């Protein structure tokens, strides 16, 4: 198998093999914390940071690790990274850390992280692994932000509420009240809303992919990956 180009890696991470919409991995944080846009964004960024660094580190030591202890080594690397990020968030983003609660330490058991370590970083160069981890993480972040934004908009009628948790006190006024005097559809904020929202987003992705495929077949023109990603 020839090495994938960087563009292909990025396309797969962001769209083609998106963690949430295609691999459907890491559902526990996806469903649990996405009751607001900022929560989704914060969780996504923390996971992306872990993914990019764990992929890079594991790729760097891939020739040293003996195959029989590789999984324990991955777990060690990932657990150390997550603990470090958990401590840093507790120190520098205390409000967000409190709001995301137990889900930050639980990034350790997010199957996406060990999945990328085993299926990509253990076989590819440091640069490639970094790009894979980063784009997979950004893809995950986009999915969580989208789902969080959707649930917040329907459930509370606002967007970007509590931005100060992520961006500091200066961001207190970022909250967009989209619907004034809106009672809110409680279902969207409660856990069933997460399942329904995720289902709708996955359906939307399939719909877009199908549209792109038919258009490509109709024009007989091999469109680039970028066009598909933008579609």
């Amino acid at each position, binding site marked *: 198998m020839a090495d994938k180009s960087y563009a292909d890696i990025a396309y797969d991470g962001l769209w083609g093999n998106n963690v949430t919409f295609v691999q459907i991995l890491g559902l526990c944080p996806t469903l649990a914390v996405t009751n607001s846009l900022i929560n989704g964004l914060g969780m996504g960024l923390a996971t992306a940071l872990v993914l990019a660094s764990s992929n890079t580190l594991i790729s760097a030591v891939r020739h040293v690790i003996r195959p029989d202890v590789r999984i324990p080594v991955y777990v060690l690397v990932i657990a150390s990274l997550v603990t470090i990020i958990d401590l840093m968030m507790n*120190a520098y983003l205390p409000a967000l850390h409190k709001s995301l609660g137990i889900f930050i330490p639980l990034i350790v058991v997010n199957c996406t992280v060990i999945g990328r370590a085993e299926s990509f970083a253990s076989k590819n160069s440091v640069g490639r692994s970094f790009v894979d981890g980063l784009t997979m993480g950004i893809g995950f972040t986009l999915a969580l932000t989208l789902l969080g934004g959707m649930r917040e908009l329907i459930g509370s009628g606002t967007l970007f509420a509590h931005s100060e948790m992520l961006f500091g006190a200066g961001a207190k006024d970022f909250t967009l009240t989209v619907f004034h005097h809106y009672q809110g559809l409680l279902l969207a904020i409660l856990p069933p809303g997460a399942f329904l929202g995720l289902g709708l987003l996955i359906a939307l992705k399939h719909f877009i992919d199908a549209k792109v495929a038919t258009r490509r077949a109709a024009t007989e023109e091999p469109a680039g990956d970028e066009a598909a990603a933008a579609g």
Partner: protein
Amino acid sequence: MLVKKMMLSATLLGLFAMVGTGLVAITYDNAKGRIAQNQQESLQQSLRALVPAKRYDNDFSHDHILVHDRPLLGTSDPVIVYRARKAGKPVAVVIESVAPDGYGGPIVLLVGINYDGTIAGVRVVSEQETPGLGTNIEPDRTHWIFSFDGRSLHNPQLDKWKVKKDGGIFDQFTGATITPRAVVNAVRNTLLYYQQHRDALFAAKIPEKNAVKHEDAKHGG
């Protein structure tokens, strides 16, 4: 041969464990001061919201004792009581009591009580109530929690310390009675506790090991 291979793998694993633990330890060492400071700041902020800084001159957040009273304070765990004083005279207490019968579990409250027994303010520390219904007790959602300000055991009379649905004077929310009822009961019980123990609360010495909030920072690592 096999033993040699096993030794190599074990050494490798041990090495990774050491490096990983070392990095975590260094990060912890750098972050712990900041984390303790954050907790302290957030505590002081909530205390100041109940008893404004100009009303006291002692080290309010450190002048605390632990008390037990399961029936009135709602938990069998020790409850923290912060004491505000000015020029040595008692000003107010803030009691971290619990409403044990919230809809989604216990609701932890900070109840600020002035020396004369009137309420300085009530805030929610943590709750797991239904979003959009029970969470209306949070001050950033409705003003309900401020309806306690200035009340005491004589205002209203004890038998009116209930939600309106139960014949009292406090509003409930449409579709959510259990949460406000739990909070009203907890605040009333806290007032009763204060009434029975007021002088003892202010007189009690700070215990020797008065480091509940800082234990993690001091003894971890």
